[in-house]
């Protein structure tokens, strides 16, 4: 009967109280010299072989690394420019601007061989290159948003004033007037065109499809450099001037 009593109490026991007894290192690094678990390694192997067969294809060479950093970089200029060029070629019309954020590029290119794998590291997303036709007011909002992070826009130059506002915006070398009654063709990923990275102002604009993945456009540009006998280089040109 005592047994019954104790067991019954255990079923409706009082709650346990938890005390943290934290190990000296609560974030254990997953690094050498940890061995590979054989079962996991065996599961990975066939997938690995399929991926590496394609990823190790060398598309081009970069004499210096194209480094990802906030604001203007050779890398962001390279991608913004190729977006404009590719979209213009596909749609058969001039494209005034190319827009990409630093957050949308997940890595830069290392110095040396650029493989298809490098392009995947940089642009893992299945984003399509699209074109929107933006009125002056949307373009104004774009520069206002980009000035905060001093991010360049391909096809344009501008200055950032002391209070973080854009000034002296020039598109194709011409001063930008938001009140001018015209549309600006902008090449960008469908992610950004759909309001991603908080670029809500693009959201209402209809998207014209190119049918080209942004990653494919990047890989093709590297291939094009190589075909023309050129290494992949890109420079900071002062597209954003900080005042």
């Amino acid at each position, binding site marked *: *009967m005592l047994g019954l009593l104790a067991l019954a109490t255990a079923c409706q026991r009082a709650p*346990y109280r*938890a005390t943290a007894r934290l190990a000296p290192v609560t974030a254990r690094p997953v690094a050498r010299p940890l061995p590979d678990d054989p079962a996991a390694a065996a599961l990975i192997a066939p997938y690995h072989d399929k991926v590496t067969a394609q990823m190790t294809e060398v598309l081009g060479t970069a004499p210096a690394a194209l480094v990802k950093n906030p604001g203007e970089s050779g890398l962001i200029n390279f991608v913004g420019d190729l977006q404009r060029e590719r979209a213009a070629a596909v749609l058969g019309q001039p494209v005034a601007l190319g827009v990409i954020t630093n957050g949308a590029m997940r890595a830069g290119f290392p110095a040396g061989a650029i493989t298809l794998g490098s392009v995947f590291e940089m642009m893992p997303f299945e984003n399509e290159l699209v074109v929107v036709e933006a009125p002056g007011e949307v373009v104004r909002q774009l520069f206002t948003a980009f000035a905060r992070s001093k991010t360049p826009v391909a096809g344009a130059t501008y200055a950032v004033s002391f209070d973080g506002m854009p000034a002296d915006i020039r598109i194709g070398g011409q001063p930008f007037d938001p009140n001018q009654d015209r549309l600006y063709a902008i090449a960008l990923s469908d992610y950004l065109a759909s309001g991603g990275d908080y670029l809500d102002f693009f959201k209402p604009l209809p998207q014209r499809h190119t049918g080209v993945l942004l990653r494919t456009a990047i890989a093709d540009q590297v291939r094009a450099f190589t075909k023309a006998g050129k290494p992949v280089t890109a420079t900071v040109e002062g597209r954003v001037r900080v005042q």
Partner: protein
Amino acid sequence: MERRDFLRNTLLGTAGLTGLTVLGGLGAAAAPAKKGPLKLTILHTNDMHSRIEPFPDNGGQWAGLGGMARRAALIKEVRAQEANVLLLDSGDIFQGTPYFNFFGGELEYKLMTQMGYDASTLGNHDFDNGVEGLQRQLPHAGFPFLVANYDFAQSALAGKFQPYKVFDKAGIRVGVFGLGIELNGLVLDRNFTGITCLDPVAKAREMVTRLRGPEKCDFVICHSHLGYQYKTAKIDDRKLAAEITGIDLILGGHTHTFLEKPEAVAGPGGHQTLINQVGWSGINLGRLDFEFAPGGKRGGLAQASVLPVGVG
């Protein structure tokens, strides 16, 4: 008194099978009180982003780090030493290496299943191949996805996910629920068709009430993909911990925050919530150990009293 003594003597005196069985059962049920505290080891990851293999040796800051086969080895090492292990993930399993582009997350789920993950929640990038892309991979996941603040009823994923799960670890009832980030603005509209994001704070409150109340949990874990902290009013793990009473541990994600050790945040009424997040890409495996001893009230939400069973 006389009656009790008589009973005890009878039990102990009956050196036969029955007496031993009862005492044996008693010993097992009352083990925590008699053999010191019970221990629970929580292992966790967040934002693994398809990092199947370590970062390449020319991969910059994280070169050579991570790798799921190594993580599996580390988890096995811990399991060999600890009886009660709970292995959890806080979302963004998908996206970041060609493995995802080629196989859509299949290998990530298979490896996590092999490692014995108990549960994960959903991150925004887990929708990168849309509702269908996620649905296609679910058969490869031998563990549940817990998310309390997404309403899937009008989507192709209706009925696929649970808000919470209660794990029984050697008698300790551990309630785990998940919270996902607002998908608007982060995920293409067409990639989360039919899914409604609900207020994570209200849902967390509902979960705690449920888990501490009818589910009689001793310990409540939230695996969150909300993010560690924002300077804006946007909800984050620290704000959640400060607003809600009764979450013991938030295992966070989304912001790729490397915390060297968990942060304690006092909620209303002084209940302490620990928050932890271990970077991204499986560079680290989080490990938190807790001891459990009887005592205290169940978060103020327990049954009015534990009724002694009057026998005879």
